[in-house]
C-alpha cells in the first residue's frame, strides 16, 4: 500500500478527488432516498403511475436528457483541453456546458409552468379532487425530485462559474487542474441522476 509524502503540503489532487467522490456518494444516497420512495409507491400504485406519466411531455424530457448528456461530454472535454494547455478551448467548452445547463433550467421552468396552469402542483386541491391517490403521489414525487435536481443544476452553474473565473485568472491550469476536474465530477453526477429520472418519470407510459 503506497505511503505518500506530499512535497507540496497544501495541494493534494488525489486527496481532493477522493473528497469530491465522497461528496458524490452523499448525493447518490440523498437522491437514493427519493428513489426508494418512488420505487415503493410505483410498486403499490403501478397503474396510477402509468396514467400520471402520460401527462408529462416525453419530447421535452428527451430533449433535456440530450442536453445534459452533451453537457457532460463538453465538460469532460474541457478537462482534456486544460491538460493539453489549450486555455481558450477549455473556456469555450466550459461556457458551452454552462449554456446547456441554463437551457435545461429554462425548459424545466416552462415544463413546470404548464403543469401549474393545469392545476398540477404540490398540494393542489384540484389534484386531490380529480386524481387518484397514486397520481397525486406521482406528481408529488415528480416535483420534489426534479426540483431537487434543478437546485443541483443551479449549484453546478455556480461551481462552473468559479472554475471559469479561476481558469481565466490562471490559477487553475494543467499542473493544478483539481477545481475543474472536480467540477466535472459534480456535473456528471447531475447528469447521472437525470439518466434515471428521465425513464422513471417520462418513459413509463
Amino acid at each position, binding site marked *: 500500500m503506497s505511503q505518500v509524502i506530499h512535497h507540496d503540503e497544501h495541494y493534494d489532487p488525489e486527496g481532493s478527488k477522493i473528497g469530491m*467522490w465522497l461528496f458524490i456518494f452523499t448525493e447518490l444516497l440523498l437522491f437514493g432516498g427519493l428513489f*426508494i420512495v418512488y420505487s415503493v409507491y410505483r*410498486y403499490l400504485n403501478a397503474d396510477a403511475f402509468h396514467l400520471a406519466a402520460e401527462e408529462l411531455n416525453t419530447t421535452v424530457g428527451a430533449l433535456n436528457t440530450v442536453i445534459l448528456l452533451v453537457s457532460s461530454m463538453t465538460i469532460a472535454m474541457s478537462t482534456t483541453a486544460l491538460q493539453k494547455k489549450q486555455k481558450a478551448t477549455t473556456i469555450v467548452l466550459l461556457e458551452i456546458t454552462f449554456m446547456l445547463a441554463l437551457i435545461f433550467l429554462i425548459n424545466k421552468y416552462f415544463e413546470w409552468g404548464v403543469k401549474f396552469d393545469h392545476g398540477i402542483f404540490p398540494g393542489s386541491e384540484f389534484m386531490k379532487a380529480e386524481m387518484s391517490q397514486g397520481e397525486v403521489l406521482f406528481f408529488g414525487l415528480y416535483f420534489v425530485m426534479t426540483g431537487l435536481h434543478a437546485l443541483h443544476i443551479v449549484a453546478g452553474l455556480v461551481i462552473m462559474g468559479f472554475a471559469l473565473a479561476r481558469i481565466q485568472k490562471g490559477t487553475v491550469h494543467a499542473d493544478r487542474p483539481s477545481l475543474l476536474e472536480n467540477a466535472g465530477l459534480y456535473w*456528471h453526477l447531475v447528469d447521472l441522476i437525470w*439518466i434515471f429520472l428521465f425513464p422513471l418519470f417520462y*418513459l*413509463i407510459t
Partner: protein
Amino acid sequence: MENEKHHIVPYRLYAIILLILLSLTFLSIEITRINLGAFTVAGALLLASIKSSLVLVYFMHLKFDKAYIQIMVGMVILLFIAVVLVTFFDYYFR
C-alpha cells in the same frame, strides 16, 4: 509521487461515448413504447444503468483511476441496491 492522471483522455473518446449514450437514450424511448409489463421497468432501468456505467467509467475517469476508488464506487452502489431490496422484504410480502 504517483499520478495516474498523466494519461490524457482524447476528445474523440468522449465524443464516441456521447454517441453511444444518445443511441441508448433513443433506444430506451423506443423500447418503452412497447408494453412489456413488468419488464418495461426492468428494461428502462437496465438501459439507464448501462448509460450510467459509461458516464462513470469514461466521463468520470473511473477507468483510469486507482483501484480503491473503483472499489468504493462499486460498494456504495451495491449498498444502496441492498438497502432497496431489504426495504422490499416488507412491501413485497405484505
